[in-house]
Every structure is written in structure tokens, then in C-alpha cells.
């Protein structure tokens, strides 16, 4: 298990927040930078300035690694729903790594904001003050779950950078569109690119996170490189991968899964064991990597984050607004 414990040589907080750029270009660069050491600020835009595999950046003490048992890296990276690369769980690991480039990558901030623009992902991460690690529960709507040690930054920081106007009530995320690289997008039936959305108060909530890595390693393509939304109190399909555009709007975004099956998937997608999927129960979940005899685990309200998020939905009928 690659869970790290703080070591004496690790970067001081100021160094991490101002200089950590979380782009691991490829194995060669990685080996070079390990040799040079952490003072290597002059290694160039793509160089890894902070952590390497096994000992990420800075662990956010509010989301400690010790509290949850993380799922093995090999399962997180080979059991994926990323229909742009096929609808089988092993498709993304295969097809997302056959030439699809997620580096360099540009993200656009647009809509009802005062600071629109296009940003290179690395620049953006530097601007936002670097990377931290959070260990979150992950619950798929298909009733399986994982615990993922994400690396990334709070979405709230990105929202602050965009400087939304008061009319902005929602954040709409759009993924990439590249049918040449993503075989699943050649079939337009699902309506690409993938779209997701959050209410402003959900987007600025302390739990909302943008992941750039897992277990101290750069996010693999199949997990939604280079930027992926993580909202641990919602079903996994809310976690849009490979974000290309973040747009602030006053209209509730019509997210892809709601468009595909509005009676099964809604806008909120809050984990709720009391509201079943029409075809299966949401009362329990299968723990990925638990083995044949692990049995099932009871699903928690808001995936165990009820204390932190319940106030966002006071007065909202959660059965109607699923």
C-alpha cells in the first residue's frame, strides 16, 4: 500500500504551496528529477518539482489517509467507467493509453465570470498554489465503492480564480471531444462530449476537489487525466473526467446521464441509500478489491459525508431531486 507517512526530509509548507507542479511527464523525466532533488525549481515547465510516486505532496490533515483503507492502485486504474473508451471496465485502461494525449492540455474558464481565459494545466496548478492529498470514499451508482487517495486542489480555489459574477448560480463542466483518439466517441448515440454540473454552493464546498493524481502519481489517462472532478458525497458519474471547459451559468446544467435516462439519473446524484435506482437497490455496496468473501457494505447517507454536506440540501426533497 502506497500510503505515506510524513518524513523528515519533506518540503516545508511554503515550498510546496508555491512551487509544486504535479506533472509527471514520463518515466525519463521522473528519474532525472529524483536525482536533482527538490530544489530543482529550474527544471523547466514540465519537470516534476514536488513529490514522486509513493510520497505525495502534502496530506491535508482534515482528510487523513489513516481513517480509511485505500483501494489498491491496480484496481483503481483498471476498473473504470469511461465510456469514451468502451463500456467494459477494462476498456479505458487499454484504449485510453494507445496514443491519446492528455499533456499538454488546456482548460477554459468561461461564462458569468470576471476572469475568463484559457490555461495550460500546469500553469493553472501553479497559479492555484500546488497540490494536496485527500483520501476520499468513492461510490459508483452501480453499487460498488472504493477508497481513493486523490492528489489535487480544492475546486473552491479554481472558482475564486475565475471570480464569478453574482448572477452565476451553477458551474457546468465539459469534457473533451476527440473521436479519433476515443473510440467510444465515434458512436454519437451517447451525445459527446460528457457534461456535468454543480450548484455554486456545492462547487465551493470544502469537499469539492479537482484531482490531478492518485497515490502520489499523476492521474492515469483511464482515470480522467489531467483534471477530474471529485465530489465524494455524490455518485461517481458526477466526477467528470478530463475536464476541458468550466463554464459558470445561471441555468442548471443538463448533465449527460440525466439526458440519457432521466428516470434513473438526476442532476444532484447524491449518494442516498433510501432512494433506489429503478433497477437495483442503493442500500448496500460491493467493496472493490475486497475479494470473493468480503460481502457487502451498507451504503451511508451522502457516502459518509452527511455531517459536512447535509446542510446544503435542507428542505430539498431528496427522493424527487435525485
Amino acid at each position, binding site marked *: 500500500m502506497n500510503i505515506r507517512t510524513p518524513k523528515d526530509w519533506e518540503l516545508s509548507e511554503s515550498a510546496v504551496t508555491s512551487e509544486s507542479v504535479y506533472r509527471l511527464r514520463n518515466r525519463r523525466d521522473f528519474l532525472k528529477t529524483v536525482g536533482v532533488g527538490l530544489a530543482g525549481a529550474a527544471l523547466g515547465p514540465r519537470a516534476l518539482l514536488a513529490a514522486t510516486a509513493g510520497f505525495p505532496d502534502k496530506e491535508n490533515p482534515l482528510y487523513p489517509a489513516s481513517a480509511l483503507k485505500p483501494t489498491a492502485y*491496480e*484496481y483503481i*486504474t*483498471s*476498473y473504470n467507467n469511461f*465510456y469514451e473508451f468502451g*463500456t467494459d*471496465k*477494462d476498456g479505458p*485502461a487499454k484504449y485510453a493509453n494507445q496514443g491519446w494525449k492528455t499533456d499538454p492540455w488546456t482548460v477554459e474558464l468561461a461564462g458569468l465570470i470576471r476572469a475568463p481565459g484559457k490555461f495550460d494545466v500546469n500553469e493553472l496548478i501553479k497559479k492555484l498554489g500546488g497540490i494536496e492529498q485527500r483520501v476520499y470514499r468513492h461510490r459508483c*451508482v*452501480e453499487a*460498488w465503492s472504493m477508497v481513493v487517495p486523490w492528489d489535487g486542489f480544492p475546486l473552491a480555489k479554481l472558482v475564486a480564480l475565475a471570480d464569478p459574477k453574482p448572477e452565476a448560480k451553477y458551474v457546468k463542466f465539459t469534457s473533451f471531444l476527440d473521436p479519433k483518439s476515443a473510440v467510444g466517441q465515434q458512436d454519437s448515440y*451517447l451525445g459527446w462530449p460528457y457534461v456535468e454540473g454543480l450548484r455554486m454552493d456545492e462547487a465551493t464546498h470544502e469537499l469539492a476537489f479537482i484531482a490531478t493524481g492518485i497515490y502520489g502519481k499523476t492521474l492515469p489517462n483511464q482515470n480522467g487525466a489531467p483534471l477530474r472532478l471529485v465530489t465524494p458525497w455524490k455518485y461517481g458519474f458526477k466526477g467528470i473526467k478530463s475536464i476541458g471547459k468550466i463554464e459558470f451559468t445561471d441555468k442548471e446544467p443538463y448533465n449527460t446521464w440525466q439526458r*440519457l*435516462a432521466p428516470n434513473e439519473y438526476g442532476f444532484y446524484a447524491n449518494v442516498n441509500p433510501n432512494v*433506489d435506482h*429503478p*433497477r*437495483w*437497490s442503493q*442500500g*448496500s455496496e*460491493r467493496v*472493490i*478489491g475486497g*475479494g*470473493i468473501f468480503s*460481502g*457487502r457494505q451498507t451504503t451511508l447517507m451522502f457516502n459518509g459525508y452527511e455531517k459536512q454536506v447535509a446542510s446544503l440540501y435542507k428542505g430539498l426533497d431528496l427522493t424527487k431531486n435525485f
Partner: protein
Amino acid sequence: MNALLEKLLRSKVFIWTLLILPGLWPVVPLLRHDPTVGADPLKYLLHHLGFVACVLLAAVLTLTPLRVIFPKSKLALALNRHRRLVGVSAFVYAALHLATHLVHEGGFGVLASDIKKPFLLTGLIAFTLLLVLAVTSLNRLVRALGAKHWKMLHRLAYVAAALAAYHQAAARKLFPMQVLWIFVPLALLEIVRLVITRRQRNRALTPSGAARTG
């Protein structure tokens, strides 16, 4: 049809082997330590067994149409000798699929909530039908029922197939194409078979009311 193929198709051992092999297939990804399978091995097994059950159910239902459409074919004739074996094996895979579902969901208790969901309820009904058909395929019961009633009862196989197709279609978030590959050929064969049988019956009853020859 060449002699070797004829010999093989006459051998019950050969047919048994063909029917057991799909059941052993899951060993392959397990030995390869395939992480996609290792992530949730019971789910993989569940989908695999269900898939095999559907294929075998569709397969057994194609046997009679093949014989009707190709009455001179030795191959069709040879395959038709194994209808009971293939049919019962469809039931066995369905039973293993249900057993895996119960283990995956943590016990018999899940059945109480299953029956409230159409997707799962159809699976249970299809399984029950296959159970009845498997039990009544024993020689003793075939004799007890008599040809006419046995034939009527075993028409339920078509109902089971339709329910299985729906159940399989509803099993993933999106409609899986494999449902079409499995059941459309069967549907087409059945249509052709019905047309042929209807035509034979009409030909037998000529306008002059001559005796039936079929």
C-alpha cells in the same frame, strides 16, 4: 458432413465437454491476475454465467427451427439429438448465475427487495420456468405428462427466453449489444420456421379438402 464431425456430434462426451468449457473459462483471467476481474470477481462471474445461460437457452431454441428449415441437413439432425442436454445445461448455468447473485448480494435476504424491481423479478421468473422445464425433462416425468401436455409445457421455454432477453438488456447501465447478437438470430430463425410450417399446413389442406399428407 464429414465422418469425423458426424462421430463427434454423436458423442455425448464431446457435447458435455463443449457445455462444461464455458463454465471453466473464468479460471483464465483469475490465473492471469487480471485486475479488472480481481476488482470484483463475483460480478465478473455473475455476468459470465448469465451470458452463457442466455447463449445456451437461445441455442437450444434454434435446434428445431434448423431442422425444419434444413430438413435434409445431417448436421441439423445430429444437433437435434442433444436438445435435452443443451436445454438442461442452460438451466444449470442460470442456477449458478442465481447462486452467484445471492453470494454477491450477501444472502437470500436480497430476494425480498429483488422482487420489487422488474429487472430482477424477470430474472427470477425466467429461472423458475427453466427449473420447471429442467425437472420435467426427466424421462419419468416426460412419460407421466404425456406427449401433448409435455409439448405445451415446454413451449414456456420461449417465455423464459423472452424474459431472459429483457433481464440481460436491463443488466447494465446502457443496453448491451450482445443481447441482439444472441436473440435476433433466434427470432429470425423462428419466423422462417413458422412461415414454413404454416405453408406446409396450408399445402396439406388443398382446396378440394384432400387428406393431409404432412
